[in-house]
């Protein structure tokens, strides 16, 4: 029996003890190799949120199994202890431990923390503090683990720069093992922590914040961002796995005992997106889109289902409908899955005749609802955000669905987009109304399978780094709420308002997310202060406490408006400008200007718009495109 870090009286007192005992099917135990002295690197991979959320994350599964293919590396996992255990660990001084060995995280060589959303930043500090690792990188000693960050938020790592020894910028498949080798080599030659960080900083994709210096102008914007010493690169290019059909993928994902948020096999069919929505960070930072080969996926699905026993397979991508061979892929998968009593779930599908046909085969029409993401209420606004979706597409898709027997529709919108007018806000309710009307037009009375139920929800738009909207200004909390109330009011005046339900997200979380997303190094003390004053699990509305955050900014002398309400000039140096994602700032700026003029830019399959991602020489950038849209590409920019 594996030893446990927590005694029985603790495990029987906390909610869901299975979060902390490890030993899940397909988890990897190298305790014998460790005892035999064969392990050279102990790596602890962390997700700064509760177990059920963290276990649903594909990226960690990929890196966990990839690192563990190496006999001299043992990669383990840790998640945020839930608030009940957090209190017990502090009271009883139980150090944070990894699930597999149950050993203290402080004894590891690396602690890798994935940064998936800004609201988990205080949980990063919780992990460090519970582990007994100094919060500030500068205070760490030779025996402390190297604390590294990765994931989408590390595309603007600056608000967390003080807390991390290094960041990995980009996709983990390429440089993780070289980084481990650099660490082994450094130790074998008797190098210090600082020696390793210097060596790491010279590897592609690795950013060591302590080796860079930022100066500011009088108005608070950045004057310069430079390496402190020669030999350290001024610019860090994101890492990218060019060929996704010949790379590492976890064939035996870890299967939790308790139900995770994603309680299913997740198969990533492609990475990146052709669409170029101007608000979407994922659509830019993962460029260019790269598909995984269909035969590879069919084989992978079989292996993963056999190794896990899951009864559901989910295809993961930013826009599944854009996968070239979706039809044959689904046919093949449905055949395999039917044999095994496995359901297929298809998030992010465009609603058309084909996808409805597929969905009617894999889902219960009566129970399932169809999801559309028009994102904006008017065509004008959809053009501004470059959502390549017309009202005709939406209404036709809905009509097709109604004819197929669906009665439940979900719609996702954003509010507070740049240049949004009252007409755009009202458009959310008006478009929803037209969808309802279409239901009654489309389905004759005798064939109606109940009433239409439409749920529209809106979130408030947060500008993210590396998007055309990175120049956008945000609004004060009150203004977001005014807009949401205006939409709600418009819903109330629609003919079918009884069939429609409208909900909107919290506004204060939006403002905070906005500060953290485009923050710089000066924001770090406020994050620490907020954590010290009790902020934790801020992604959970039960725990989010806006007053504590605002007090933290105040006491650190930080003006949140500087990050949210300020107009940013075309020349401004952004905190994240030292990162090169392939897509150029020039392209993003051009997209921003086209957005302001309401001009649509073709997607990558239609034509190349010269974003810069072609520099990686892979994916769609190396494939022929449709010619018909070439005229819409700005001249001389291809």
């Amino acid at each position: 029996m594996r030893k446990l870090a927590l005694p029985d009286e603790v495990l029987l007192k906390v909610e869901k003890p299975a979060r902390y005992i490890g030993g899940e099917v397909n988890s990897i135990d190298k305790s014998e190799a460790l005892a035999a002295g064969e392990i050279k690197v102990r790596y602890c991979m962390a997700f700064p949120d509760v177990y059920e959320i963290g276990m649903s994350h594909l990226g960690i599964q990929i890196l966990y199994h990839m690192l563990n293919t190496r006999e001299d590396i043992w990669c383990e996992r840790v998640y945020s202890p839930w608030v009940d255990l957090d209190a017990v660990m502090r009271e009883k001084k139980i150090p944070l431990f990894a699930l597999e060995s149950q050993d203290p995280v402080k004894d590891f060589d690396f602690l890798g923390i994935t940064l998936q959303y800004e609201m988990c930043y205080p949980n990063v500090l919780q992990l460090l503090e519970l582990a007994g690792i100094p919060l500030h990188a500068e205070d760490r000693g030779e025996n402390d683990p190297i604390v590294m960050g990765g994931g989408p938020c590390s595309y603007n790592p600056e608000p967390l720069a003080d807390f991390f020894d290094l960041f990995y910028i980009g996709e983990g498949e390429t440089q993780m093992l070289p980084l481990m080798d650099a660490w082994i080599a450094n130790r074998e030659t008797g190098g210090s922590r600082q020696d390793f960080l210097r060596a790491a900083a010279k590897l592609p994709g690795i950013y060591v914040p302590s080796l860079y210096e930022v100066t500011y102008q009088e108005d608070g914007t950045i004057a310069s961002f430079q390496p402190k010493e020669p030999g350290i690169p001024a610019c860090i290019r994101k890492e990218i796995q060019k060929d996704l059909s010949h790379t590492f993928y976890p064939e035996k994902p870890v299967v939790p005992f308790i139900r995770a948020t994603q309680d299913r096999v997740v198969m990533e069919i492609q990475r990146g997106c052709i669409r170029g929505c101007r608000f979407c960070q994922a659509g830019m930072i993962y460029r260019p889109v790269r598909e995984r080969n269909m035969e590879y996926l069919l084989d992978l699905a079989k292996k993963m289902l056999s190794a896990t026993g899951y009864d559901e397979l989910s295809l993961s991508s930013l826009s599944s409908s854009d996968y070239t061979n979706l039809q044959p892929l689904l046919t093949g998968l449905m055949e395999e899955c039917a044999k095994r009593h496995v359901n297929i779930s298809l998030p992010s599908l465009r609603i058309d005749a084909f996808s409805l046909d597929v969905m009617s085969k894999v889902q219960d029409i009566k129970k399932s609802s169809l999801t559309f993401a028009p994102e904006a209420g008017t065509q004008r606004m959809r053009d501004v955000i470059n959502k390549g979706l017309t009202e005709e597409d939406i209404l036709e898709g809905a009509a097709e669905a109604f004819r197929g027997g669906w009665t439940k529709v979900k719609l996702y919108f954003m509010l507070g987009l740049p240049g949004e007018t009252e007409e755009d806000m009202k458009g959310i309710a008006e478009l929803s109304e037209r969808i309802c009307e279409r239901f009654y037009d489309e389905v004759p009375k005798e064939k109606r399978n109940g009433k239409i139920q439409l749920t529209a929800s809106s979130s408030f738009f947060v500008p993210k780094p590396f998007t055309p909207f990175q120049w956008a200004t945000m609004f004060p909390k009150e203004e977001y709420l005014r807009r949401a109330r205006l939409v709600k009011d418009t819903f109330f005046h629609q003919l079918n308002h009884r069939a429609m339900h409208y909900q909107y997200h919290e506004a204060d979380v939006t403002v905070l997310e906005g500060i953290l997303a485009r923050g710089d190094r000066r924001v770090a003390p406020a994050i620490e202060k907020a954590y010290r004053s009790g902020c934790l699990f801020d992604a959970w509305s039960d725990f989010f406490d806006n007053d504590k955050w605002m007090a933290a900014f105040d006491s650190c002398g930080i003006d949140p408006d500087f990050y949210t309400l300020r107009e940013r000039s075309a020349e401004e140096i952004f905190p994240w400008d030292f990162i090169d994602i392939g897509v150029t700032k020039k392209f993003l700026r051009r997209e921003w200007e086209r957005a302001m003029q309401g001009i649509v830019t073709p997607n990558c399959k239609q034509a190349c718009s010269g974003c810069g991602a072609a520099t990686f020489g892979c994916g769609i950038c190396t494939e022929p495109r449709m010619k018909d849209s070439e005229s819409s590409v700005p001249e001389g920019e291809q």
Partner: protein
Amino acid sequence: MKVRIRFSKEGNLRFIGHLDILRYFQKAFARAEIPVKYSEGFHPHPLMSFASPLSVGLTSEGEYLDTELEDSLISESGEEILASLNAVMADGIRVNSIRRLPEGQKKKGSSAMALIGQADYRVTLRSTEAQALSREIWISVVQHFMDQREIIVEAAGKKQAKKKKRDEAFEADRINIRPWILSLHAEGAGVFTMCLSAGSAANLKPETVMEQLIAFAGLERFKIPGESGERVRDLWLAIHRLDMRTEEGVSLSELGEEISI
């Protein structure tokens, strides 16, 4: 083919709850590529049921699950099925017997859950002082305890509990549990084995028996476990289920027939 599988749930798996074990087995059968029959309808679910839920924190070597396998498996022996299941088990859970149940019997009372009449337990007092007490003393305590004609406990059933909330006029039911203690033995070092009534008619928990025994002997200080001194649920006891039996005392693993090719 209807089968009954006996399994053990030990070690760290004691922290996994009953419903999660059900989901665990659904996946385990799929991993072992042993096809389980599914229910009819739009939301088919595997046909699988457990004899009796085991509380979190308890271990067992006598758990039972009934399921129905696709007939394509007729070419495999029981041992082969067990081997392929054990090859995909998590550490702490093992299947150790499989028996074919009579076909076609849809009559009430043939499921493992309905058959249970008794359950065997091994209970250990964690208190180091209790463990130091000699076996002879415990034997004599148990003998006097069992010699009682009545052992009365105040049972707060669900109905009463609700009533209590409503109007505070709460009257506890007084139940004589002595007839439900079918056997109780002191094994030494604070260890006891017992056979208790179980199932839907009368279900006696081992912790209830121990509460009574300790109170009878005036040894309530043993309710504090040795190491930490903290009172959490029933932490002063380590409870291990040994087996489940019918009303007549036949182990559920002895019903049905062996599966051979």
